[in-house]
């Protein structure tokens, strides 16, 4: 059974993750848990003292939280979308990173919605969203989309684990596992024995899921964009928002995959799995996406800028003013739209390290771009804000919001750390097929099941 040499070799390579935790591992887990606990403390304060201890006020009613919400859900949808496309396209070289994509999807889909809950003044009434929903509200669209997407993606991710769980179940003696683990793998492998019939069924299930997850994520992220687009607000009320959001989601997703691939490659000596060509492939994707992003960015802004409607004028002033959002605005444009083209486009700069660095920079730039898309717009209503309290006029996040943001990142990393203890970070049992001729079986065959 499964005496596939490549799979065994890969399992061995993954042993470093799967085996007893190292000291460094323990330290980083403790540090991350500490950051997470600080966030919990901040959450406790926010709930007991009210939203006044955050930077949110009557004009900027949502601050960093909604930026995180949009950003993290973007990563999630990107992961699902890219994974689905690679799967259906039978992209052979992309198989090693499939699992990372799915994990990004699920983890960020779990963490992201918490940030919108942090915006709720009455989290105790959260269930009213399910008890008395109004289908006209974009928030309800989001609730439906996120819940659907979360269920789909968790199940999809689990289905891609079945083969690996079966492999681990069959190799449990060799990897000297504890009993609960053996039991876990035995249950969740669902008695998968790699028979042709089972394999066919599993492939069909995965094809169906990949095929529905692609439109689901596109719709879900468009709905998220409409959370803003449906407001009668200058700077948000734009028809380009939905495709723009989808594109920037894919963009941020690719950047994050590069980053995570690199971290695993460094910490687990997976140079043979995550090869240089993976980085260059994704690097080029990053560059192309950056150009598309620039195109969308430009289209969005030029149409408003050209006519310079009154309120938009004051918004634009804030973007360009170096003492306000100027620095953030220019640098985010540079990081998102120019840096990838320079670093990846020019061969002299191109290397794994520079690609990884660019990915990190792109992620930062995209987060800042989201911030600029949200906060200055909220600070620029039609009627002038004539308030003497500076914090009511201009938003600045407090430590509560920052520590809760960091807690989200910490939780995201913790999820990755723990999941890679449970099963290999690469779909090992899929890898063997890379050696064989990949069967391009695009017809879904759902009817013949």
């Amino acid at each position, binding site marked *: 059974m499964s005496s596939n040499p490549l799979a065994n070799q890969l399992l061995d390579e993954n042993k470093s993750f799967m085996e007893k935790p190292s000291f460094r591992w323990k330290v980083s887990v403790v540090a991350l848990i500490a950051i997470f606990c600080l966030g919990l403390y901040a959450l406790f304060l926010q709930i007991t*003292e*009210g*939203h*006044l201890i955050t930077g*949110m*006020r*009557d*004009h900027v*009613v*949502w601050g960093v939280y909604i930026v995180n919400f949009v950003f993290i859900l973007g990563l999630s949808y990107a992961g699902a979308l890219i994974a689905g496309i690679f799967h259906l396209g039978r992209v052979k070289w992309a198989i090693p990173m499939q699992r990372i994509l799915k994990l990004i999807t699920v983890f960020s889909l779990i963490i992201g919605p918490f940030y*919108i809950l942090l*915006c*709720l*003044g*009455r989290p105790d*009434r*959260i269930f*009213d*969203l399910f008890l*008395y*929903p*109004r289908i*006209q*509200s*974009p*928030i*309800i669209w989001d*609730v439906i989309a996120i819940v659907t997407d979360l269920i789909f993606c968790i199940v999809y991710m689990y289905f891609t684990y079945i083969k690996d769980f079966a492999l681990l179940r069959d190799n449990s003696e060799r990897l000297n596992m504890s009993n609960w683990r053996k039991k876990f793998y035995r249950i969740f492998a669902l008695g998968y024995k790699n028979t042709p019939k089972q394999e066919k069924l599993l492939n069909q299930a995965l094809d169906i899921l990949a095929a529905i997850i692609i439109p689901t994520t596109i719709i879900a992220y468009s709905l998220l964009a409409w*959370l803003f687009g*449906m*407001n*009668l*607000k200058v700077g948000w009320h734009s028809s380009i928002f939905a495709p723009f959001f989808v594109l920037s989601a894919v963009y941020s997703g690719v950047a994050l995959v590069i980053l995570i691939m690199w971290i695993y490659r460094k910490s687990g000596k997976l140079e043979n799995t995550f090869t240089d060509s993976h980085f260059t492939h994704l690097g080029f994707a990053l560059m192309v996406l950056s150009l598309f992003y620039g195109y969308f960015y430009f289209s969005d802004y030029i149409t408003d800028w050209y006519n310079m409607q009154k309120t938009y*004028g004051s918004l634009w*002033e804030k973007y360009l003013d170096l003492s306000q959002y100027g620095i953030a605005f220019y640098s985010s444009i540079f990081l998102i739209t120019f840096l990838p083209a320079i670093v990846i486009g020019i061969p002299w700069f191109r290397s794994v390290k520079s690609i990884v660095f660019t990915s990190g920079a792109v992620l930062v730039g995209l987060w800042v771009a989201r911030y600029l898309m949200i906060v200055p717009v*909220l600070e620029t*209503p*039609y*009627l*002038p*804000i*004539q*308030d*003497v*309290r500076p914090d009511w006029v201009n938003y600045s996040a407090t430590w509560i919001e920052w520590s809760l943001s960091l807690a989200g990142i910490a939780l995201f990393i913790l999820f990755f750390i723990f999941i890679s203890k449970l099963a290999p970070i690469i779909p090992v049992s899929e890898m063997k097929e890379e050696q064989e001729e990949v069967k391009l079986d695009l017809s879904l065959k759902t009817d013949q099941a």
Partner: protein
Amino acid sequence: MAQTTNTEDSPKEVNSRRDFLRKGSAFGLIAAATGAAGLASNQDPKKSGEKIKVLTTDGKVIEVDKPVDDCEIEPCAPAKGEAARQGIPGRSFVMVIDLAKCKNARKCVEACQEGHDLLPDQEFMKVHLMKDNPDAEPYWFPKNCFHCDNPPCVKVCPVGATFKRTDNVVLVDNDACIGCKFCVSACPYSARIFNWEDKKSYSDDDPNYSPETSVPGQHGTVSKCDFCVGRSREGKLPYCATSCPMGAIYFGDKNEDAVTNGEETLRFKQLIKDRIGYRYLEELGTKPNVYYLPPTDRMFPYERGFNYLSEEQVEVMKNSIKSK
């Protein structure tokens, strides 16, 4: 109800239940029409068992219960729960603000805050200093919730905590609001405020709570101008309208084609026609129910309004209208 009028040619009254609800008790109608309520209506309506003294035909003084003349619309108490979502039948509340009269005395803001138990910084009614173009003279612009007929805030509410009623009023049910603040950002007029602070008087389970009075505005929920519909049931104008020393704020029922500032009562359509009444940001398509009369031939120079503001506030106002 003794009446000396000749009502021979009036047809048999065919008052539907709707009309009855609309008018309130017949006694209330007559008593208020006579002006008997003129003095009485200033009194606290909650005071029950009030007596009045009557000199009878034979010269004796007797005490009788004061007629319930402070009720214009039945039921008199502010509606609660599901009833509060319906609106007062046959009413179509509308406000007209005469910008020519406003001198930023801020009495409307203060009366509103007191009436709605708001914190000093919370304003349902705000007075902005506006300047329409670089050459135009600035003017004061009182702004409350416009109670739009196409309300962007109600559209986005995920749980139906804010709603549009048949009497034009848009209200927030603080018992249902989850505090997502989407309505705050959706309102193009910045009319909504969030209850950021846990004030003592904010209580969750106030049995007397009615969305028509907005009191108490619970911690973590959204509040806004309620057009004082609770007061309208007693035949009283909103706090802002009664408190304005200039009589700049008119309020009324569009179905009756009348608006009043307490002193004078005008025909709504004629007023809007004659003075070219407009609605702020009409082009947004929100169909507001607050109309403005243009600030032409103003009674005071706008600078006089600075007298009512702190130096800091004046500075902020001046900066915000600086032409760029």
